[in-house]
């Protein structure tokens, strides 16, 4: 049994309605508890004058699985760009925009983050994704499994099979891959690409299966609702990056028909076609739609300037963007009957009109959506920029004059005309804590994370007050993971193994006969190896803890 006390910190804990109250936080055996002020503790930390928050949670960051590894292999230059630091605790691992698993865990923890979720796990790659995340130290992790481009689901939809069977298939897939949710990427579009379609609008027919993205979104959102999956359908909408795609983004919101949905990296989906260059911000339209539809949450996918790599399941759009690659190389891959993958290295440039406008659109979205509980801070790492740019992004959101300074450096047409110029809002520490901790925890159904109430896991980040918010969030004074001190003054002092968050929804086992037959007829891999058992998950996760997440409503029977 070990106890510790953080004494005199300023607590920012929006999940419990606490904004700046000065009080102590007690921890016993990795959980937050109420300790009597006179009670002796094993270690006491004087954090007076410092800001205390729950550990950060990144709910959309590409940190494990096939395409992440391909991105690493495509860019050895990224791994030459830095040299292993002098901390003897760190094992060799390098990379800036595609860091190795170890460096990923180290760099996240050094910013006060304690959990990260891989948003695009192909079912056939689930083992690989879990193993890479298991190899990522300190952070708890989980993944959303990709559906909606797999030939089986599209065929079931095309054949008009009973919704219940599709729902059971979705439930089985989440259970078998030990996922935390379902992501749909360019609904139906990755499959349509294989049938030579180069774009697919929300109400456009898939040329082979004769189904539309609207049907795919609706079916999956309904299935997740009925299965009681806490995280709403994670939607990478149609037409990513295409000027004028605001139409398909709004149509996707409409397709939900009031069911919950999480639109991801919306910065890439909020483009109009106004102006001489036929490329404009549609941030206002999208923000209005999000404000008007309480069933919708978003993460932004902010871009930051410099070298990065875009890694996506969206083969259709990555193929279209391949010529923009910098350096000039890319990978496109098909994943057998399952999904796709495209890797295009990219350098966002301040002097580029398009990139400058993308930057402004992302910030506009952060600032125009009223309810911070439905906006999550992401760069869609590494697609908009590496996660290490979060402290910089936080400063942009909290400091209007700094934001204006940065805006003035960009392409002159954007610097002068951007909607962003007229937005005076500066986010508070409380709002930042919501967007980086409390909201992602709530959107994922993690009751005991992202907050500092009694009984919560002691994932805690302590920051020294600094008017330069970038400096403040770059170097936390202390970071605790499950009550263990892992970072002190921005430097790692321990590297424990993180846990795996996952779901085990119920489904009618009769579906397994159909799945086995399908796999037998169409897939190269044997169906009996598809499901990852709990023991195997534990082995994949490097012996880390298994954090089975409770389900909602009637699906929640355990």
């Amino acid at each position, binding site marked *: 049994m070990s106890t510790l006390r953080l004494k005199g910190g300023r607590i920012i804990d929006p999940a419990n309605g606490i904004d700046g109250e000065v009080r102590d936080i007690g921890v016993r055996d990795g959980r937050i508890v109420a300790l009597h002020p006179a009670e002796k503790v094993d270690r006491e930390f004087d954090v007076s004058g410092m800001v205390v928050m729950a550990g950060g949670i990144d709910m959309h960051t590409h940190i494990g699985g096939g395409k992440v590894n391909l991105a690493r292999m495509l860019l050895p230059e990224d791994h*030459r760009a830095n040299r292993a630091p002098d901390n003897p605790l760190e094992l060799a691992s390098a990379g800036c925009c595609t860091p190795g698993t170890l460096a990923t865990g180290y760099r996240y923890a050094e910013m006060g983050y304690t959990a990260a979720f891989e948003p695009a796990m192909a079912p056939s790659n689930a083992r690989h994704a879990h193993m890479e995340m298991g190899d990522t130290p300190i952070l708890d992790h989980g993944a959303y499994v990709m559906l909606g481009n797999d030939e089986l689901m599209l065929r079931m939809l095309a054949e008009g099979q009973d919704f219940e069977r599709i729902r059971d298939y979705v439930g089985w897939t989440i259970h078998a891959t030990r996922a935390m949710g379902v992501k749909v990427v360019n609904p139906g579009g990755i499959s349509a690409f294989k049938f030579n379609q180069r774009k697919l609008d929300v109400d456009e027919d898939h040329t082979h299966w004769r189904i539309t993205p609207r049907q795919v979104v609706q079916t999956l959102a309904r299935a997740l609702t009925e299965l009681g999956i806490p995280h709403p359908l994670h939607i990478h909408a149609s037409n990513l990056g295409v000027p004028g795609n605001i139409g398909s983004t709004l149509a996707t919101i409409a397709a939900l028909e009031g069911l919950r949905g999480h639109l991801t990296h919306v910065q890439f989906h909020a483009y109009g076609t106004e102006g001489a260059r036929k490329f404009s911000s549609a941030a206002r339209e999208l923000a209005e739609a999000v404000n008007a539809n309480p069933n919708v949450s978003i993460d932004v996918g902010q871009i930051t300037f410099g070298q990065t790599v875009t890694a996506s399941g969206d083969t259709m759009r990555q193929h279209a963007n391949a010529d923009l690659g910098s*350096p000039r*190389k890319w990978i496109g891959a098909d994943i057998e009957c399952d999904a796709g993958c495209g890797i295009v290295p990219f350098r966002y440039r301040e002097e580029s009109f398009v990139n400058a406008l993308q930057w402004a659109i992302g910030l506009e979205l952060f600032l125009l959506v009223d309810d911070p509980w439905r906006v999550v801070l992401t760069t869609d790492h590494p697609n908009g920029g590496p996660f290490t740019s979060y402290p910089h992004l936080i400063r942009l959101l909290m400091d209007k004059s700094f934001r204006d300074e940065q805006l003035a450096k960009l392409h002159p047409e954007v610097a002068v005309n951007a909607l962003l110029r007229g937005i005076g809002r500066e986010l508070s520490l409380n709002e930042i804590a919501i967007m980086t901790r409390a909201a992602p925890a709530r959107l994922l159904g993690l009751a005991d994370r992202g907050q500092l109430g009694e009984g919560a896991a002691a994932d805690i980040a302590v920051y020294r007050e600094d008017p330069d918010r970038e400096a403040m969030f770059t170097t936390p004074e202390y970071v605790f993971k499950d009550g263990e001190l892992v970072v002190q003054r921005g430097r790692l002092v321990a590297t424990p193994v993180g846990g795996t968050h996952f779901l085990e929804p119920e489904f009618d086992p009769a579906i397994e006969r159909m799945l086995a037959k399908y796999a037998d007829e169409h897939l190269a891999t044997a169906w009996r190896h598809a499901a990852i058992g709990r023991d195997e998950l534990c082995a994949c996760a490097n012996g880390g803890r298994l954090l089975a997440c409770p389900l909602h409503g009637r699906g929640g029977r355990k």
Partner: protein
Amino acid sequence: MSPANDRDANAFRLRLRAQPALRLDLAGFVPQALGGETPSGVARRALWHGNEQVPIGEFFDVEAMAADGPELVFEGDLSRCDGLGRGLDGGRIRVEGDVGDYVGSGMRAGEIVVTGSAGLLAACEMAGGRLEVGGDVGDYAASALPGDMDGMRGGLFIVRGKAGARFGDRMRRGTAVVFGDAGDFLASRLVAGTIAVAGAVGAHCGYGMRRGTLIFAGPQPEPPPTFVPTGHDVQVIWTLLARSLAVHGGPFAALAAARPRRFVGDLAADGKGEWLLPA
């Protein structure tokens, strides 16, 4: 060293005392970074020995030296010393002996002279300046680091001995001159730039060559089937090219008198690369 000799200097002589057990990484030990330092200060500078940082004085005796500008002279068998002159941006480095891998990689200006032989990836991604190797160079000289898109992109690279395989792979600018034989895949995937070779060449010369120029001053290789002869009169450019190569002497001294045959290829790639066969 007596304190009286431990004065600030611009130029240093570093004598290797004993072979290091592991590879030494000399990247960053460039004359401009050490200008104004004392010999004992140089000896205290840390460098990587395998996974460990150690002072350079553990391996080298350092003394100041009179010179016109920033200069480093290394003596001994430095074949376990990698990255010498990486990113060099001015000044001179001289190695009296052999040197390890990556010598002059990414150098932009200045001069490096190695009297012995160099290891792998010499002059890789070199962008400017002059690099001369008196002996042989290993594989991937004047090429790109693994995964990178562009090889040597500027400057002058002279090899007095033999070159290994993949010399000039993905090279896109600059001039490389090889006095000896070259290994397999000479000028593979060449994007642009000029390579002149006086010895024999290995298999698959010019494989995937897109543009750029290859000059064969010695044995005349048989162009592969994906290269075709052109009937162009190249006498004007040849006169200029031959004159620029003549300064290197030896087999390159008398090229101007020849009337070269010209082939273009690799037609399997872009097909705009040229072979000039003067004999």
